[in-house]
């Protein structure tokens, strides 16, 4: 029994002092890193669920549970929470923002980074593979399809894990134009 206690203590010390935090690529934003972790870790066991399945407050309690289930570090958990925070509004239905501005205030690249699209999709050959590549998606599916998907991700697949992002119609147009050039 004494030997087991010593081994346990040695293991704890080793893991504490020599543990290497799983580093995130500094070039990638925390949100994009969180989106990538979300797609990589959730889908290891089950379908990735839309972020809108829980509110922000609920996610803050669910994430420590999932940290254990998915073997994530605390740093990774915080990145996933940053992604969820960027995706969700205070409204549990995650309604799209009202179209109040005459022009989008952010570029397509900024919007894609903000919502962590590359966590699940390839853009310019880089990103996750939970969802289909977005390179050539406008040419293949048409602008109308991509706009519809951004407005209502479940319109063609009820099981889609893609969240409904709080984007305005103008922001959706901006992203679709950008993807049309890919």
């Amino acid at each position: 029994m004494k030997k087991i206690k010593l081994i346990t203590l040695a293991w704890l010390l080793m893991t504490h002092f020599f543990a290497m935090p799983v580093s995130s690529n500094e070039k990638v934003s925390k949100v994009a890193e969180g989106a990538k972790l979300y797609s990589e870790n959730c889908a290891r066991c089950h379908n990735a669920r839309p972020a809108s399945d829980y509110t922000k407050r609920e996610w803050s309690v669910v994430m420590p549970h999932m940290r254990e289930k998915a073997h994530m570090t605390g740093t990774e958990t915080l990145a996933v929470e940053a992604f969820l925070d960027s995706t969700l509004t205070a409204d549990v239905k995650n309604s799209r923002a009202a179209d109040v501005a005459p022009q989008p205030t952010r570029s397509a690249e900024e919007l894609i980074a903000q919502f962590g699209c590359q966590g699940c999709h390839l853009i310019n050959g880089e990103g996750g593979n939970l969802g289909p590549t977005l390179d050539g998606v406008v040419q293949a599916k048409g602008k109308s399809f991509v706009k519809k998907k951004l407005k209502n991700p479940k319109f063609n697949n009820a099981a889609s894990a893609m969240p409904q992002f709080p984007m305005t119609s103008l922001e959706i147009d901006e992203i679709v134009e950008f993807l049309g050039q890919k």
Partner: protein
Amino acid sequence: MLAALALSANVYAQEESTLDIGRFAVAGYGDVTFVDAKNENSSIESRFVPIFLFQLSEKIHIESELEFSIGENGETVVEMEYADIHYFLNDNTTITAGKFLLPFGQFGPNLHPSWINKLPAVPGIYGHGGNGSLTPLIPVMSDKGVNVRNVFKVGQGKLFTDFYMVSGPREEAVVVGGAGVPGGHGSIPEVAFEAAKGDNNGKQAYGGRVAYAFLPSVEVGYSFYSGAYSDDGKLNYSANAIDVNWITSFATVRGEIINTETDFIDPLDGEQDLFKRGGWYLQGSWQMRQLGKEVFNPVELIVRYSELNDALAGKRWTLGVDYWLEASAALKFAYENTKLEDGDIDNRIFVQLAFGF
């Protein structure tokens, strides 16, 4: 010592979270299952399995899963699957205490909830007291004790380790197999894994799992478990397993190989003997959205093969079709064909509505 480690640790916790901080949430799953077997009355079963989650502080998290179902006499049956407390010691290490799902293989700790298990039935090697006509190797195990979990970045992937100490198995009076068990054994004492109050022999069981994940596609793990089960503490039960998980955006392949060894007293000569039994399963799934036809987007095809070797051997094919109503709700259809070593064949049809929430 633990307190010193915790205090000196970097804080990677909720105080840095970008989310609004909550205290309580309910998640969980449930299902309704219709089973039609040739030699049994068809039946409909229903379960509701809430998971209660509490966040006491940035470092302490509490969780409990209760399973509600209907008993043989119409009574409500409540089982506590787990109730434990996590202490996040540092960024990589978590200490869990209480009754928890043992990290043995992948199906038990992670894949058994019905909305995650892609088929309406569990793999042939898992179950307690029977899995259709098969006698499974091991139940989905949960027990009382302490677990230390670590996550390390190693190379391009991650190394997971779990080591635990729990109350351990107990001796059960029921005899499995009887005189017909191959290998000359007269009777094999069944090992009881359900956590119970107290301990029959005062000896703890030890186990763990070491796994490497080549994220995001592949995870390979090795699990072990060993503990005395007899009242006098002299008879031991041990198991080890290798599990593999391969994931793409539209397909998965999962498999586990489990071998068990159980000490027992041969009633014919009173000598201690060793009873070995093993088995494995392999499961594949494929999402039909790959066909590019919108009508097939929510449909997934699944095939699983399970095999039990040595005593009480059997082979089972399970074919399934899932229609996903939501990302966490599926209508599942499955056909199961089991061939036992004595030549008996058992065919079953399942229809299940499973949901996660």
